[in-house]
């Protein structure tokens, strides 16, 4: 193996099985000759796919963290968990630019805490980069790494999101919104009401005020800050609504004999909002890039997530 940039891929945890993730790794090798891979999981299975040994390092770690496991206990009690081994390898390998995992989000967070915390010991946040109505992208942070938060944590999220959008989208002064149930400063739960004045006076944050859920992806802000519980609801509701709308459009086309045009519309919407194409969420606050694909991800999501990492090191924007 030479000193090319390396991406670490955790193959375990996908609803579609490790084969789908290894297939995604193969797509990456075919499309991006400038990249090497470290593939973590069941060594025998990975070897059986005959990937080029001069570009692929295999790490045997066949154990997983299930949704019924406590990720912190699993970290100490299970010796060969793929996601932990993958994060550890990413931390140790100087050539590794980041890790892609489809596995348990809590386990990925624990691994990141243990091996990839930044110097400031920032508590990581899981951000989703979502297409907005102004042909740009909005960084929604947090989407589930910290379900309950305090006000100072939300301020920290605002900084993480701001830094990310400056670096990745070349936005000079990213606009930061605070997710609330009304745009007025008096609206919101205790957390939002306590956070609002802190964000308003925080240096380095271009705070535009509260943003309602219906405006989350309007493009009025570049960074939308929320506690993990609320942010996750926005993310899942957005995806659910997009799927419902596309399904209804397809039904309408079938019913009225306009299938050709509705298929084109549905295809465009699927391409814009499909999480397989969008690739992954990103763990902000880590020393290297930690990308989390959805549990139902297949090969395309792995390819898309790898493209994100390659864009980052090529100094391009996230989805360029």
């Amino acid at each position, binding site marked *: 193996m030479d000193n090319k940039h390396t991406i670490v891929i955790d193959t375990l945890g996908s609803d579609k099985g490790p084969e789908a993730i290894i297939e995604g790794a193969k797509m990456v090798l075919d499309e991006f000759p400038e990249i090497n891979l470290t593939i973590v999981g069941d060594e025998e299975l990975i070897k059986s796919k005959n990937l080029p040994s001069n570009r692929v390092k295999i790490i045997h770690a066949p154990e997983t963290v299930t949704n019924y496991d406590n990720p912190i206990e699993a970290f100490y009690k299970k010796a060969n968990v793929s996601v932990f081994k993958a994060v550890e390898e990413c931390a140790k390998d100087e050539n590794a630019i980041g890790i892609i995992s489809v596995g348990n989000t809590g386990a990925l967070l624990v691994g990141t*805490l*243990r091996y990839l915390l930044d110097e400031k*010991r920032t508590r990581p946040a899981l951000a989703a980069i979502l297409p907005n109505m102004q042909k740009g992208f909005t960084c929604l942070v947090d989407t589930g790494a910290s379900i309950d938060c305090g006000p100072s944590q939300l301020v920290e999220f605002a900084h993480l999101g701001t830094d990310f959008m400056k670096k990745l989208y070349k936005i000079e002064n990213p606009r930061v919104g605070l997710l609330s149930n009304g745009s007025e400063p008096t609206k919101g739960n205790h957390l939002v009401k306590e956070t609002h004045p802190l964000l308003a006076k925080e240096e380095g944050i271009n705070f535009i005020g509260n943003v309602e859920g219906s405006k989350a992806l309007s493009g009025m802000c570049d960074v939308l800050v929320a506690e993990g519980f609320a942010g996750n609801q926005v993310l899942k509701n957005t995806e659910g609504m997009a799927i419902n709308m596309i399904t209804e459009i397809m039904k309408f086309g079938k019913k009225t004999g306009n299938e050709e045009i509705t298929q084109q519309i549905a295809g465009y919407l699927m391409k814009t909002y499909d999480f397989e194409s969008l690739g992954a969420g990103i763990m902000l606050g880590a020393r290297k890039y930690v990308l989390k694909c959805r549990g139902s991800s297949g090969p395309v999501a792995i390819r898309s997530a790898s493209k994100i990492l390659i864009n980052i090191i090529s100094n391009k924007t996230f989805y360029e």
Partner: protein
Amino acid sequence: MYERLMKLIKENLPDKDLSNAKPESRLIEDLGMDSIGMMMLSMSIEDEFGVTFDAPVTFKTVQDVLDFLAKNATK
């Protein structure tokens, strides 16, 4: 040692008023620590006091941590 430990706890709970915290205060129920916060606290304790945890921390109170450190701290 108590002050050094409380400084670490405060770093992990920046929004909490810990002025009334006592050695018998419970980390989760009284001080509001969550599971990720406990993990980050354990990592801070490892660095600050030169100890190593090879299992999830199960401290209930501040005093439990102090008792552990009295036996195991190397710095």
